[in-house]
């Protein structure tokens, strides 16, 4: 630097103070760079290359010659390496004394996270005043904390699903409970999904309980639940309505022929003797069926009441049978559709 500049630094000091600086001649050639900036082109370095051929100037734009940049005075720069356009750099340029060219100091800014890997940089490549290593430390620390946070959230999510599952499950039979049934029916009604309700009441269950005890009763309920689960599809829902009453919800299945067949199979299986501790427990069942297609505006509560009446009709008719709502003897006549 010429005398009278007020300050003289040798290159070694400059390299340590600003290891990413470049001295650019008035012709636009890089005369010298700090050691870290040289690492952007491993092996050969940047010396001798044209500054604007190595770096694409994004801000200020439309600079064709270094002299134009020097004329702007101290200027903030946004640049990209032409070799690696994904690597943005920030910088500041100041003009040197007349005719001496330009002094540029560069930084990776927040792109340092990628840059340290891309150019194999280490702590000694940055001066102690540079916050790059501090920022990298923080990025890694935050990443580690976020990982823990994600793990915690996933465990909580798992626990929430398990709790919800438990809240909607009948503990004895593993079927859905009444709360779950109400929610599913409300959803179907709201979405105008067609469905059928099968209300099932076990017959002679009280006798099993009285004769063989509650353990036998519980066992019978579990066997009955297994049968109901077997006879429904994945899309259907089997609920324990309470005591020895069950409700099956058949999603988008309103064909009376098919429903009658399912009901007949269930009744046949319920009537098979259920062995328990050396005794045969014998039960039967009665079924009432409501089909959403029979209602102009299906309301779950009304359909449940109607299915219950159809069930009562089945019982009166001699048990082990199924009746549809609206059938002769099958409860309240359904409101004609449409």
């Amino acid at each position, binding site marked *: 630097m010429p005398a009278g500049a007020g300050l003289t630094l040798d290159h070694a000091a400059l390299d340590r103070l600003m290891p990413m600086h470049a001295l650019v001649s008035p012709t636009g050639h890089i005369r010298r760079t700090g050691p870290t900036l040289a690492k952007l082109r491993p092996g050969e370095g940047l010396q001798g290359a044209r500054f604007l051929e190595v770096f694409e100037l994004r801000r200020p734009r439309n600079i064709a010659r270094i002299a134009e940049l020097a004329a702007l005075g101290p200027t903030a720069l946004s640049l990209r390496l032409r070799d690696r356009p994904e690597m943005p750099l920030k910088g500041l340029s100041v003009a040197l004394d007349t005719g001496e060219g330009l002094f540029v100091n560069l930084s990776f800014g927040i792109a340092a*996270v990628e840059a*340290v*890997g891309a150019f*194999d*940089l*280490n*702590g*000694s490549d940055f001066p102690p005043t540079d916050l790059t*290593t*501090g920022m*990298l*430390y*923080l*990025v*890694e*620390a*935050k*990443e*580690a*904390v976020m990982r*823990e*946070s994600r*793990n*915690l959230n996933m*465990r909580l999510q798992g626990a929430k699903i398990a709790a919800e599952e438990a809240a909607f499950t009948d503990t004895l039979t593993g079927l859905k409970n009444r709360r779950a049934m109400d929610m599913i029916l409300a959803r179907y009604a709201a979405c105008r999904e067609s469905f059928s309700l099968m209300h099932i009441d076990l017959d002679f269950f009280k006798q099993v309980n009285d004769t063989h005890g509650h353990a036998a009763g519980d066992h019978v309920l579990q066997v009955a639940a297994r049968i109901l689960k077997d006879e429904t599809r994945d899309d259907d829902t089997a609920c324990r309505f309470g005591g020895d009453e069950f409700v099956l919800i058949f999603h988008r299945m309103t064909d009376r022929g098919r429903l009658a067949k399912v009901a007949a199979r269930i009744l046949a299986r319920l009537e098979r003797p259920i062995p328990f501790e050396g005794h045969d427990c014998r039960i039967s069942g009665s079924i009432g069926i409501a089909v959403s297609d029979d209602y102009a505006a299906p309301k779950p509560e009304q359909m449940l009441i109607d299915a219950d009446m159809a069930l009562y009709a089945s019982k009166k008719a001699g048990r082990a049978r199924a009746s549809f709502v609206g059938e002769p003897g099958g409860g309240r006549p359904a409101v004609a559709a449409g």
Partner: protein
Amino acid sequence: MHGLINRSIQCFLRDTYGAAAWTAVAAQAGLGAEGFEALLSYEDRLTDAVLDAAAEHLDKPRDMLLEDLGTYLVSHPNVRAVRRLLRFGGESFIDFLHSLDELHDRSRLAVPDLAMPELELRDHSATAFTLLVRHPYPGFGHVSVGVLRAMADDYGVLAFLEFQGRKDAVETITIECVEIDFTEGRDFALAAGAA
């Protein structure tokens, strides 16, 4: 005590002595087998209960257990994040020692409610130091001895460390670096995902 610290103790016991040992310790301490969550805080007495149970179950003095915990934090592959974060402290072991003064504030920058001990390094010569470890909960000095021993190894430095005792919430460690280039040490690159 912060969950991160409790969780470190849990992972140390599990990774070093096996899942069964951890389950036994957790049960004795009145803790579920799933143990601590890293991002929640717990009462100090739970940490106490776990450390006491571990010391009894493994028939090992608590101080030694804490020192092993420190070594584990730096050297076990399951917690390599800790070693990396510590290596950000400096290019050489001596730089690293000096960076310990900042550790308390650095960790607060990442996890504001994590109360790490306040560390203060005093140098007596270019190779002899005293580290003061200040924390209301006793034991961080022993953990620090394990951490420093493993970090010296990591930098390839032969160092002698000695725990001098606790007084007024401050635990004192003496550090003597005998040979700076004792071994090659382990590599460290700033780039994440590297060594």
